[in-house]
């Protein structure tokens, strides 16, 4: 029943971010062609007293989370992101190049990592700028194991930075970011994600271990440390070959009560600074958003909201290849099974229709046959009587009898025509052989014969002139078929 109601209800999405000290869960539902947050919850790991799996099971139940697929988000600090310039513009080729060279990009072996990449725009001729993301496989596996215990599957595994970027795209004022280069600081409780958007694309991303907690706990020291980190990030940004100068700064995440940070950043970087509050994005917010406001005071919710509500396509998926293959095989098997069942059902239906049609015909034939058998005895007798009567009538019919034919012939034959031989075959023909004085007499006679009702298509077999006793004589043979 639950399955039926969930099938009938509007589609939902779930995103789960498992960090070092926080777990963030969000659920969104498709309402008016836009996914809107319908459930959101964050918990500190330290507050979970039991093991993680049963606690989360309970948590999911409380949040009424349905479905069996979630978007798993890996926090940025677990991921190594590298900017590469590769000598190809073909995505398939780029994938092959990365596949070959991945072991050179990390100290770990090929089997110990999972990687994904995104091709950036603005490539030089024949080359592509690629953002390569590498994460240790055990980090992914730990989370997948937890999901398995929760009887869930990871639909895809995303990086928090990319999801935070998608979150920015939801922000209506983000449109102007496409034309400028902006530094974005997403403040979380323990750390902050910093990335640079250039021409609307994330081109640089780092994680700094200065979060809301550090700022609040170190009111005297955080400015120096923050300043150092930002300086180091700018150096790295330029070192990686990015030339575009940062024009503005956007600060989001757990910013509530951190007015000092905004002022400090504005003054230290001498750039316009904007704060983006989570509630500035009403497009994906539920009507009652006060609980979200409370939650957003402690942690950044950018990645989970971005993962659920964005309509932009994410590029980096860190789902291990073997799981993807396994899933594809499962999907294909399921698809084949459904296709098979459907085909068999169609075949059965068609066969049933054909059988029904055939048996209707057969039944009709049997009815006819029964009717025939019933009438055959009496009708057969009548038929034989009819045949006998017809035979007698045929014999009695003197229409083309020899007497009639001869009488007709003798009546119409002119004196110039002399018969030597008359050959009559009943119901077939009369062959007339004879002679005449002139050829014209023969043909005149043919015309006379044709006028008779008993003959049709008269043929002159021959009409030859001869000398007989010093006189010209025309010998002829006429074939006169009898009319039926």
């Amino acid at each position, binding site marked *: 029943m639950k399955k039926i109601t969930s099938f009938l209800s509007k589609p939902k999405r779930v995103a789960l971010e498992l960090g070092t000290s926080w777990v963030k869960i969000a659920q969104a539902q498709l309402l008016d062609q836009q996914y809107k947050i319908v459930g959101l919850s964050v918990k500190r790991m330290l507050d979970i007293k039991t093991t993680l799996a049963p606690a989360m099971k309970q948590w999911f139940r409380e949040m009424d989370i349905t479905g069996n697929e979630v978007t798993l988000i890996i926090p940025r600090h677990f991921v190594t992101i590298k900017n590469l310039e590769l000598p190809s513009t073909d995505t398939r080729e780029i994938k092959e190049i990365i596949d070959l060279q991945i072991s050179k990009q990390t100290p770990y072996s090929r089997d110990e990592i999972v990687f994904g990449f995104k091709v950036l725009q603005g490539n030089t001729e024949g080359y592509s700028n690629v953002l390569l993301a590498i994460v240790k496989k055990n980090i992914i596996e730990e989370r997948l194991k937890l999901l398995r215990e929760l009887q869930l599957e990871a639909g895809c595994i995303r990086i928090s930075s990319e999801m935070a970027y998608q979150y920015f795209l939801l922000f209506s004022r983000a449109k102007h970011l496409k034309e400028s280069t902006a530094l974005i600081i997403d403040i979380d409780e323990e750390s902050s994600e910093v990335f640079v958007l250039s021409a609307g694309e994330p081109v640089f991303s780092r994680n700094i271990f200065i979060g809301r907690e550090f700022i609040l706990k170190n009111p005297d020291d955080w400015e120096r440390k923050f300043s150092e980190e930002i300086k180091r990030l700018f150096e790295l940004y330029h070192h990686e070959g990015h030339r575009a100068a940062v024009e503005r700064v956007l600060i989001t995440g757990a910013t509530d009560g951190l007015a000092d940070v905004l002022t400090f950043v504005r003054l230290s970087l001498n750039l316009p600074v904007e704060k983006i509050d989570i509630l500035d994005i009403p497009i994906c917010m539920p009507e009652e958003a006060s609980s979200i406001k409370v939650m957003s005071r402690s942690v950044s919710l950018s990645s989970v909201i971005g993962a659920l509500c964005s309509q932009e396509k994410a590029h980096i998926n860190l789902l291990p290849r073997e799981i993807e293959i396994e899933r594809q095989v499962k999907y294909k098997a399921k698809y084949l099974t459904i296709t098979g069942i459907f085909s068999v059902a169609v075949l059965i239906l068609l066969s049933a229709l054909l059988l029904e049609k055939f048996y209707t015909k057969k039944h009709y034939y049997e009815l*006819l046959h029964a009717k025939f058998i019933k009438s055959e005895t009496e*009708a057969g007798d009548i038929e034989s009587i*009819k045949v006998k009567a017809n035979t*007698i009538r045929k014999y009695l019919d003197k229409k083309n009898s020899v*007497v009639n034919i001869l009488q007709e012939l003798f009546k119409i034959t002119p004196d110039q025509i002399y018969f030597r031989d008359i050959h009559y075959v009943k119901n077939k023909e009369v062959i007339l052989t004879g002679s005449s004085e002139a050829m014209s007499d023969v043909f005149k006679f043919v015309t006379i014969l044709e006028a008779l009702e008993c003959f049709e298509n008269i043929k002159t077999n021959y009409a030859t002139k001869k000398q007989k006793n010093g006189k010209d004589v025309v010998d002829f043979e006429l074939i006169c078929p009898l009319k039926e």
Partner: protein
Amino acid sequence: MVKLKITKKERLIAYVAVFMVVAAIGDRLFYQPIRDKFSGMSKKIFVEEKKVGVNLRNLAQKDAILEEYKKLSKYVSPIGTDEEEISRFLSIIEETARNSNIYMSGMKPQPTAKVDFYKRYVVELEVEAPTERLIDFLYRLESSNQLINIEEIQLSTKNESTKTLKARMLVARILIP
């Protein structure tokens, strides 16, 4: 493992080929046998409908047919042995020839034929007579109360000076039991 790289066109050709093979197999294994079965049944129904139609028509015309047959029943009689019937036929011919005053130079019975439900006796005759008498002979034969027909006749003049005709003919008589 070597992975085959095939172009879109090759893939399309492969799909078309597979489709055609499947269609051919389907045609041979399913479509044709089913079609044959259906057309066979349709033919049987057609024949049966015709047969039932003929029967119903006969039953509807029963009275008219019996009435007609009653008028012709004088031509139906029990048949004796072939020898008896042939000699009876020959005597009819001889008597008719006598009455018509013609000369029969030959009379040769042909083998008896059983045709469907009746028997057919044929006699080959050779006669010589003037035209009028010959015509009279033929007329008498055909208008007797027997089912007698002249099947074939060859008339020729004996010589140009006389009016005597020479005729060779096949005379048939049928007997319906």
